[in-house]
């Protein structure tokens, strides 16, 4: 085998860090699913909630993205 163990561990760590994106995916899916659930029950109230929808989605999505960025930091920015 070529290369050193530290490099391999780096890639492994970056891969493991991105597992956190699952949480963001569940969160965003949950938000949009619940929104559609509610919107189809009462379509007239839906347009007023799109602002909340996107804020909620962005808040949940950011947490998933943190883990992606962590992966990038391990890959490219770590010493």
């Amino acid at each position: 085998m070529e290369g050193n163990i530290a490099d391999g561990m780096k890639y492994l760590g970056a891969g493991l860090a991105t597992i956190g994106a699952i949480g963001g995916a569940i969160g965003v899916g949950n938000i949009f699913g619940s929104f559609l659930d509610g919107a189809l029950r009462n379509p007239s109230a839906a347009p007023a909630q799109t602002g909340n929808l996107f804020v909620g989605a962005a808040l949940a999505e950011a947490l998933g993205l943190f883990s992606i960025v962590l992966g990038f930091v391990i890959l490219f920015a770590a010493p």
Partner: protein
Amino acid sequence: MADGAIDPIHQFEVTTYQALDLGGWDISFTNAAAYLLLASGLVIAFFSLASRSAMVPGRLQSLGEISYEFIANMIRSTAGEDGLKYFPFVFTLFFFILAANLIGMFPYAFTTTSHIIVTGVLAMTVFTLVTLIGIFKNGFGWLKLFAPSGIPWPIYILLVPIEIISYFARPLTLAFRLFANMLAGHIMLKLIVSFAALMATFGLVGWVGTTLTVTMAVAITALEFLVAFLQAYVFAILTCVYLSDALHPGH
């Protein structure tokens, strides 16, 4: 990275156009500074062109009026009527971030908002302003923000530290959200396009793969335009939410 390898980080490199030095401080004119100036210049140019007050608005003026109404409605619905005093701040913030994000979507352009120092300064500005407004408007009453009313008192022992931590995490999450979205989006685009170019060298199978990947890249570019708008929107609406907290603590 090795020669010929895909290097998705390269696009974020800050290069110096003109080295400048001010008493030991490095204030070189870099591509980041140039694109920040371009973003603010574009916003100023657009609104000085769009803010003519003709009786029958043209296309540009309509766009200007729509954007005014958009931000004004956003503030009204989240921070209430008294939040409209801070309209210029939110308006500038939204359009500056939007311009910076959209400029970054051009090929070979530099995305200023994918640098945490830029988003960090924006977030710290919002945080400092909101904290000062809260303290000056409400005095000690501002502290009610950390102790919501209407709950039994033993809960406060647990809740107050959580509220304080979440308050001070605000600039961090605000900065990180914009930074992470722009960074991840641009790296993803670069990786997919590089993969398409790589596939093209594999003969007939490669051409099919390239076609599929390029189609996907187009779709993701469209998604990135949505993200560019959405992140500016989220940054602005969160600023409104924080403003609302500062204006009416204890709700």
